[in-house]
């Protein structure tokens, strides 16, 4: 691997990201999958870094899942997006940041389509007006939330309490970065570092002390693939893709996986359990899995937030071995305590995958 070669490509894919004043939209599914992540993003950006992020409860889904599942036509998806932009315009913002990779891809695709076919944009404006009497300006800058954490990565590193380093050996952790497919595969120029060698997460890992692993199936989909997972008959295909990735990364003995997509951490995490139960195979050390994190969770850990406040107890794969490795303190008894400090229910333990 020639690192300079990658740097050259990264330098070709720079993206202009304004530093402040963003209109923030959430993902449909992330709050359920990893509830701490989006909260931590706003927490870090607003309270730690002091930036202006505006959010409104009136925004809806972007329609991306339905669009990619072929259940709504393109005009419908576009009109939904137009309404989101109208909310941003009403709030007086022109920088739009989405928490979801598919949303980001969806917005990018729609903006590019309008750019190529202005008559379609005109039609969508009409439709939006007819539907809810709203008008909109297109965002001046469009970003994914991981773009912003990437932008703030060095600031975070300066304030870091922990680093992605093995406390015992002093070696950097071996980190697999996994980029959501819709981040840059559709429009490589819209992603930091392009589609082949995306830099967005690699940059964070490097800034926070870790070592990025480049394994053969790096580009491969996590296995979610909406139509694959959503239909039960196709789930074997979904898990097969995940299996392929883990088989490929296994020889590198990764310590952790960092992702920037709503679906990826969920499937990379949960399918490890399915693979362990069906194939009897685990990928972490001593029968554990490889812990999977969102970049916000990693940022939170680095900044010293309590793991249970980050919602890490909702991970299937136990995160404790990694916390121990880095030396992040945590209270094991508090893992399943609710906000009211009362015990919530504990999950049953799997047969093959070791968990806490």
């Amino acid at each position: 691997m020639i690192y300079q070669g990658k740097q050259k490509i990264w330098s070709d894919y720079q993206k202009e990201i304004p530093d402040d004043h963003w209109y923030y939209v959430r993902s449909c599914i992330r709050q359920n999958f990893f509830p701490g992540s989006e909260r931590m993003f706003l927490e870090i950006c607003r309270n730690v870094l002091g930036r202006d992020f505006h959010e409104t409860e009136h925004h809806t889904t972007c329609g991306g899942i339905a669009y990619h599942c072929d259940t709504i036509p393109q005009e419908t998806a576009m009109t939904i997006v137009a309404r989101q932009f109208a909310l941003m315009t009403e709030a007086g913002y022109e920088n739009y940041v989405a928490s979801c990779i598919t949303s980001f891809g969806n917005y990018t695709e729609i903006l590019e389509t309008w750019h190529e076919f202005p008559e379609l944009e005109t039609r969508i404006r009409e439709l939006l007006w007819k539907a809810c009497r709203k008008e909109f300006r297109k965002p001046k800058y469009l970003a994914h939330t991981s773009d912003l954490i990437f932008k703030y990565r060095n600031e975070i590193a300066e304030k870091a309490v922990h680093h992605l380093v093995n406390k015992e050996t002093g070696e950097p952790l071996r980190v697999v970065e996994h980029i959501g497919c819709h981040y840059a595969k559709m429009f490589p120029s819209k992603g930091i570092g392009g589609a082949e060698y995306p830099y967005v997460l690699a940059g964070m890992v490097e800034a926070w002390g870790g070592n990025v692993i480049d394994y053969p199936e790096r580009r491969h989909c996590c296995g979610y693939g909406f139509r694959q997972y959503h239909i039960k008959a196709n789930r074997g295909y979904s898990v097969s893709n995940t299996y392929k990735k883990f088989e490929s990364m296994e020889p590198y003995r990764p310590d952790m996986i960092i992702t920037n997509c709503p679906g990826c951490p969920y499937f990379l995490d949960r399918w490890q359990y399915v693979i362990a139960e069906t194939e009897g195979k685990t990928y972490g050390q001593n029968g554990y899995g490889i812990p999977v994190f969102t970049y916000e969770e990693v940022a939170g850990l680095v900044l010293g937030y309590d793991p249970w406040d980050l919602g890490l107890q909702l991970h299937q794969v136990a995160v404790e071995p990694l916390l121990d490795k880095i030396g992040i303190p945590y209270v094991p008894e508090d893992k399943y305590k609710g906000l009211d400090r009362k015990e919530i229910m504990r999950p049953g333990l799997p047969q093959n995958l070791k968990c806490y």
Partner: protein
Amino acid sequence: MNEIVVIIGGGIAGLEAARQLLALGHSPIVIEKSDHLGGHVADWHKLFPDMKPAKDIVDELVSSSKDANIFLHTEISFINRLKDRYNIMLSNGISITSRYILFTTGFRLFDAAKKEEYGYGVYNQVITNQDLEKWFNTSKDSRIDNSAMKAVGFVHCVGSRDEKARNTQCSKVCCITAIKQAIELKEKFPDAEIYCFYMDLRLFGKKFEDFYIKAQRDCGIHFIRGRVSEVSENIDGKVIVKAEDTLAGRPMKVTLDLLVLMSGMVCNPDSTRVAGMMSLPIDSDGFLRSTDNVSRNTVSPKNGIFYAGACTGPKTVPETLAEARSAVLEIHNSIISRR
């Protein structure tokens, strides 16, 4: 009868044209940007189909055109048109006035790094056809490990027939070059498995098909119909290549010790730059546009300006030489008809 003809480019087309012009009693002036004559062919090791050393051809051309005025390290600063002739200002400060300019500006090899998925410049074991020819000549390339050469792949059409690479044309010579190089590598590493990943095999020239048969039957080279879509590196530093075997209709992968990218021919930006000084038309493929592509392919739409070789599109060595001769004949006839 003696007429000055400015030849832009000291590759094989330029040298052949100079030689023919000298033979006809004219005074060619060859302007070459680099420090050596012979262009791309000078970097090549052996030429298909007879495996003639490229050096022999270049040496022969250089020695037979030595009476021409040759400026190395020299570029065109500007050209302006006088009444019936051109004034050419060179970067070394010399200015030439001539009725005739011959473009033999050639091509540029597609920058394989632009096909990011192939990892040229990122993975150690990925090289180009040009790198391989240089290695044949010098035996020096840190990426080629003589001791561990068990599997080698050739990717055809790198930057050719590829809208994403902004080159829709076929570069014509890559298929046969890949087969030639595959055979040469097999001869050096008889135990290696060699794979050629192709979309079509366009083996149009004399004896090209014989090469193909030789590669299959005598060398056991595997031809896989499918374009490589993705290259990655495994933990041992070898490259994993993914393609679809379109004959089987199934995805395929293979681990290789060396991957050779057959970079195609793209237009030379220098020739576009100089053409721009005289408002010469550029074709949709980016190469210079001839008056027509059938009968007047060496003739530009402007008086006194002629083309030869790969400046108008990908060509083989013999085609380039033939075009150089043909262009000289056009120039000579034009000179005669003026009297």
